[in-house]
């Protein structure tokens, strides 16, 4: 492996050295061109200007959002405090009592007849000193807005589009599933390093054994990416050795019995998988 790395490094350095000199010669030739490239200069200036202002704009935007959120929070807290406060007064003049306190607040008797249109005195009030006041209920808050679409899930047999840039949605490569990708790359079946024996392999996982050491690797990735032997859980159940790894999407369990290889996968916690394996193996 070290030799390969040295070879590849040497290859890259030599290539860049040769091409670099070629590009420099080409650059000198192009300097005689009369094309002023004014369009490029203008675009470059604009791009640099955007680059200078973008972080500040983003920062400003974030600050505005932060301030707005703080103000909204304060208003919400104040509103809740107001409605739940002992000092909350209803429009009809009723004052809620403090807990355990006697009802003492009563609307004052009008000194003169009420104005036309005014509510009659005493209306909407509890019977004085004989009934407990209505329990105060804060105005109903609107229900929280929920996302209409449920979060994406991956079901059995489905694969994430590993090679699609999900941030931008751009299909930055040929696309397709991981399975398609490794098939297209001619990496199926996965190659086995010299001295290793393949216990199990599918489109995403390979289990290799050598000299009593077992590693689990993602199919198609180089040997550098082999998980170290202590990064998986080794199970000895009913005379069967199983190897368990917890992947980013699903847990994978690979085990061998009577010369046959089996795998179990789950979208859930790997401990569920152990229980399932125990059940299956002890059956």
């Amino acid at each position, binding site marked *: 492996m070290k030799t390969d790395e040295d*070879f590849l490094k040497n290859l*890259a350095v030599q290539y860049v050295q040769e091409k*670099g*000199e070629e590009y420099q010669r080409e650059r000198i030739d192009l300097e005689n061109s009369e094309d002023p490239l004014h369009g490029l200069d203008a675009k470059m200036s604009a791009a640099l200007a955007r680059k200078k202002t973008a972080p500040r704009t983003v920062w400003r935007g974030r600050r505005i959002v932060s301030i707005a959120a703080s103000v909204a929070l304060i208003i919400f807290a104040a509103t809740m405090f107001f409605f739940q406060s002992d000092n909350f007064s209803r429009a009809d003049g009723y004052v809620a009592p403090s807990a355990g306190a006697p009802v003492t607040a009563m609307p004052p008797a009008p000194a003169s007849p009420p104005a036309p249109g005014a509510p009659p005195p005493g209306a909407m009030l509890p019977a004085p000193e004989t009934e407990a006041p209505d329990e105060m209920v804060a105005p109903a808050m609107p229900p929280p807005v929920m996302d209409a679409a449920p979060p994406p899930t991956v079901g059995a047999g489905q694969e994430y589009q590993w090679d699609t*840039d999900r941030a931008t949605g751009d299909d930055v490569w040929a696309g397709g599933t991981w399975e398609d990708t490794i098939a297209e790359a001619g990496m199926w079946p996965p190659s086995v390093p010299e001295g290793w024996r393949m216990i199990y392999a599918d489109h995403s996982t390979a289990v290799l054994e050598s000299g009593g050491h077992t590693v689990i690797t993602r199919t198609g990735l180089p040997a550098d990416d082999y998980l170290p032997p202590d990064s998986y859980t080794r199970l000895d159940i009913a005379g069967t050795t199983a190897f368990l790894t917890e992947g980013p999407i699903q847990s994978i369990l690979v085990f061998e019995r009577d010369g046959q290889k089996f795998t179990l996968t789950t979208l859930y916690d790997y401990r569920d998988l152990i229980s399932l394996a125990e059940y299956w193996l002890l059956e």
Partner: protein
Amino acid sequence: MFEYLYEKYKRLMWHKAYTILKDRALAEDITSEAFIRVLRNLHKIDDPDSGKTAAFLVTIVRNLAITQYHREKKSQPADFGEREYDRADNFDMEETVAVKDEAERAAGLLDRLSEELKSVFLLKYAHDLQHKEIAQILGITENNVTVRLFRAKKKLTEWAKGVSQS
């Protein structure tokens, strides 16, 4: 430093982009975008006059131009006039074996790689960039960098073994 780089290499980079895109305005866009990415990685450039720097800049602009070409055409790339695309099927082994010079041999092997694989490989091994930095420069995911790098290494190793056996 950046202004010096821009003035020195803008024609070369624009020319490389134009060779692929055949569109003056698009080539300008891609060249300016490439320079912005160079600006973010200015610390990677030791000597602005070196061939290595020229190769670094051209790698970036060519990759961006080819990505743009794919977006524009939504099809397989045309012949860009250079020996840059994967030609494993019609590769002339004798031609490569006959090459004596090591540098030319390296070029013979690397030019068989597609631009997508070659650029990742060169940024990793010739320019010593981390996967994360490569992903940022090329606008791809780190996972994609890993896979492309693996593909490139695998092909180069196989081809090199094939050459030596011949």
